[in-house]
């Protein structure tokens, strides 16, 4: 493996600030970024990534390539939670298995954004439609998760309020903001892009680094919860992302994606949600334990993906795209 790639990723400001946050918790510093500052940064990142994706999509247009990529994204968004569920059922009750499956079927926007700045450092581009793919991949896993729970749970399985589930899935704040900003980007195109560039592009990397500092703080605080999860879940949180990334890379190769698109697609499939899905699961599958799915996604899979995953997936792509 190209140790250079790993090292240059490790030494990039966003990753280093993530570790600084982890370190703060490890040495019990009282460093803290009080709410709603992290919420603001997170909304900013969704706003900016959505808008920029939209303006790029405006340039590239809706080609067949875009359609195929979006179809592949949707397919993975339905498949991943399905096979994850059956793997998880080996050890876990239905509720937890369904909630974790939904978590891993969905995506993490911050992982996607960190991958975007990783590619930028390598001078590799990716299509704006990948942002659309991200938005589309956030919701289906929620529906699949609740369906699986509903089919497999016995006993106190009460009637699911599907209206609420669907609204949570497709209209939760983060999906809505990405999709909305994307649409606005598509509508305003290059003119809009240049008007908002200082806000949505120039300060973006700094905002990301600052936000990852907070992610490091939160992730490290959640690590302790993982003891309850045991080795099985810790392994799951590392292995499944790799499996999903491999599947994504295979598909990307089949449908002829570019290297940059392939990496972003791999990252989407490999990443797990810690915003939209946990909130939805809390309401729709209340018997699932959030102290399992939140720390798995936040404290293991997220750092794994941005630290090891990015260079690893890129390496594999380099091998196959040569």
């Amino acid at each position, binding site marked *: 493996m190209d140790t250079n790639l790993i090292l240059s990723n490790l030494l990039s400001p966003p990753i280093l600030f993530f570790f600084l946050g982890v370190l703060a918790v490890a040495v019990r510093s009282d460093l803290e970024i009080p*709410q709603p500052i*992290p*919420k603001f940064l*997170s909304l900013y990142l969704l706003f900016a990534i959505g808008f920029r994706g939209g303006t790029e999509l405006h340039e590239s247009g809706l080609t067949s390539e875009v359609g195929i990529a979006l179809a592949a994204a949707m397919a993975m968004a339905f498949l991943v939670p399905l096979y994850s569920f059956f793997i998880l059922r080996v050890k876990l009750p239905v509720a937890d298995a369904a909630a974790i499956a939904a978590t891993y079927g969905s995506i993490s926007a911050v992982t996607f954004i960190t991958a975007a700045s990783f590619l930028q450092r390598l001078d590799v581009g990716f299509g704006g439609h990948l942002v659309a793919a991200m938005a589309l991949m956030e919701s289906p896993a929620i529906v699949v998760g609740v369906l699986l729970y509903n089919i497999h749970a016995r006993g106190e399985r009460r009637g699911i309020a599907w209206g609420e589930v669907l609204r949570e899935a497709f209209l939760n704040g983060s999906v809505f903001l990405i999709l909305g900003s994307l649409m606005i980007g598509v509508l305003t195109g290059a003119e809009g892009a240049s008007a908002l560039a200082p806000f949505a592009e120039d300060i973006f990397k700094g905002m990301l680094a600052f936000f990852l500092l907070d992610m490091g*703080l*939160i992730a490290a*605080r959640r690590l302790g*919860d993982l003891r309850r999860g045991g080795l099985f879940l810790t392994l799951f949180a590392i292995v499944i992302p790799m499996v999903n990334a491999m599947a994504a890379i295979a598909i990307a190769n089949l449908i002829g994606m570019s290297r940059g698109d392939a990496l972003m697609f791999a990252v989407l499939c490999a990443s797990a949600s*810690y*915003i*939209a899905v*946990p*909130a939805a699961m*809390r*309401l729709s599958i*209340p018997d699932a334990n*959030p*102290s399992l799915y*939140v720390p798995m996604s936040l404290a293991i899979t997220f750092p794994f993906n941005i630290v090891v995953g990015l260079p690893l997936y890129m390496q594999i792509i380099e091998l196959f795209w040569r």
Partner: protein
Amino acid sequence: MKPIKRVEIVTDSLELKRVLHILDELGVSGYTVIREVTGKGERGTRAGDELTDVFKNSYVMTACGEDDVGRIAEAIRPVLQRTGGVCLVSDAQWIVH
């Protein structure tokens, strides 16, 4: 001054909408809400540091008549059973204005 019951509910923030809906349905005369509340209970610590409202609480207080208490308790109990929290009832005097 009018004797009244003071009902306090601490509940998962994600359930806040449901709790307020319940109170509205029961026709209480009003309620007061504090949204940013943290805490600890049998379901572990809720530190309110997540990006979502997971692991966060909200606090609702309503001053109501004696007979409302039973109905509120009954309607709130399923919520508390599902996602945890506490519901306390105490006596107070309402300064009528």
